[in-house]
C-alpha cells in the first residue's frame, strides 16, 4: 500500500462526492486535512472479519467488495466501484469486531477518513453536520433499494435489473462473486447470462 499526496486527486474526489451531496470547492478543501488517500493492489484486504473497522472509504478508482463468511459459503454483500462509499458499518460505529471483510478486486485508489478524524471534522467544521445527514440519507436509500430488489423480485428480474444498470460488472467481477451478490445460484446465473446474448 502506498500513501499519495491527496491534493493530486482532489478534483476527481470532489466530482465523485458531488454525485452524492453537493459540496463547494471551498468546503471540500477545508475537509482535505482530515482525509487520506491509499493505493492498493488487486485482491488486497482492507479489513478482515474479526478486526475493527476504523476507516470509511470512497472508491476513486477500482473495485472493493464486502463479504461475509458463513458456515456454508462466502456471501458478497456490496460491490463498490468509482464514487461508492464502503466500510464495515457496524464495526466502524459501534467499535466492535467486524463480521465482514473488505477486499479489493482490482488495483484501487481509495480516499478515506479515519473514525477519529470524522468525529473531529464534525466538531471543527460545523457545516459537515448537515452534509453528513444528507450523505447518510443517500446511503440509507441505496441500501433500502438494494434490499427491496433482493427481496421483492424474482431471480430473473433481479439479474436483468442489475445487469441492465451495471453492464460493466459482468466483465469486472468474477461470475461466482456476482452470483453471490445477487443471491443467484451459479448454475442459474450461467443460464441467465445466456439470455443476454444478442439474437437469442
Amino acid at each position, binding site marked *: 500500500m502506498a500513501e499519495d499526496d491527496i491534493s493530486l486527486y482532489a478534483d476527481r474526489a470532489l466530482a465523485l462526492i458531488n454525485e452524492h451531496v453537493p459540496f463547494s470547492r471551498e468546503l471540500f478543501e477545508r475537509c482535505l486535512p482530515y482525509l487520506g488517500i491509499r493505493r492498493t493492489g488487486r485482491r488486497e484486504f482492507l479489513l478482515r472479519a474479526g478486526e475493527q473497522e476504523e476507516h470509511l472509504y470512497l472508491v476513486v478508482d477500482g473495485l472493493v467488495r464486502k463479504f461475509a463468511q458463513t458456515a456454508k459459503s462466502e456471501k458478497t454483500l456490496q460491490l463498490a466501484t468509482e464514487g461508492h462509499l464502503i466500510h464495515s458499518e457496524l464495526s466502524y460505529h459501534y467499535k466492535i469486531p467486524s463480521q465482514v471483510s473488505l477486499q479489493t478486486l482490482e488495483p484501487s485508489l481509495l480516499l478515506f477518513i479515519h473514525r477519529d478524524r470524522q468525529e473531529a471534522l464534525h466538531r471543527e467544521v460545523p457545516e459537515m*453536520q448537515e452534509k*453528513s*445527514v444528507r450523505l447518510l440519507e443517500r*446511503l440509507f436509500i441505496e441500501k*433500502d433499494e438494494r434490499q427491496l430488489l433482493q427481496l421483492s423480485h424474482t431471480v430473473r428480474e433481479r439479474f436483468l435489473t442489475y445487469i441492465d444498470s451495471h453492464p460493466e460488472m459482468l466483465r469486472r467481477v468474477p461470475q461466482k462473486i456476482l452470483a453471490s451478490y445477487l443471491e443467484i445460484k451459479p448454475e442459474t446465473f450461467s443460464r441467465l447470462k445466456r439470455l443476454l446474448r444478442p439474437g437469442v
Partner: protein
Amino acid sequence: MVKALSAYLKNFVSLTPEEVEALASVAEVHTYDKKVRLIEYGERERYLHFIVKGLARKYFMRGEDEVITQIAKEGELICSSVSFLTGKPSLYIVETIEPCVFYSFSKETIDDLYASDPIWQKLGRLIMTDLFLKKEAWELERVLYTTQERFVRFLSANGDLFQRVPQKFLASYLNIQPETFSRLKHLLKSRNPQLSAALSGS
C-alpha cells in the same frame, strides 16, 4: 408523553427540558386504532412517526404475500423512510398492530428545525446513523444466521414482542416459514427453560 420522547433523545444528544418541549411542540399528535394503514403503496410519506404508545409494522407485497421489514414499538421510529426522504411514491405500507399514539414530524418541520439550530442537525445525523445501522444489522442477520439462530436471537432480545405480535407477523419479519416457526417454538419450549417464559404467552 414528552417523557417517552425525552428518553429516546437521550440516546443521541443531551437536550435541555426546554429543547425537548420545543421539539414536542412542533410535532403533531396522532392517535390511531389497531390495524389502521398509515400509508398505502404508491402514496407519498408525509410523516416520520415516533411511537409514544402502541405497535406498528412496515411491509411490502411480494405477489400475494406480505413481507414485513420492521416491527416498531414504544420509543421507536417508523415511517416509509425512503418515500419520506425522497418524496417518491412509497413501495411500503405502514400499518398499526395495536392502537397507537404518535408524535408525527413532517418533512417541513424537520427542515425548519435543521435550519434553526445546529443541535437539530447533530440530532438528525445521529438518528439517521442509527437507522442506517439498524438496516445493516437486519441485512447481516438474514445472511449470517440460520433460521433457528435468527429465531433465538430475536426472542432473546425482544421477548416482550412474542406476547404482543401475531405469530404470522413475526414469522414474516424473521423470514421463517410459519410451519417452521411453530416447530421452533415447540422445540425451544421443551429444551430451553430461559426462553420458554417468553414463549408461553404467545
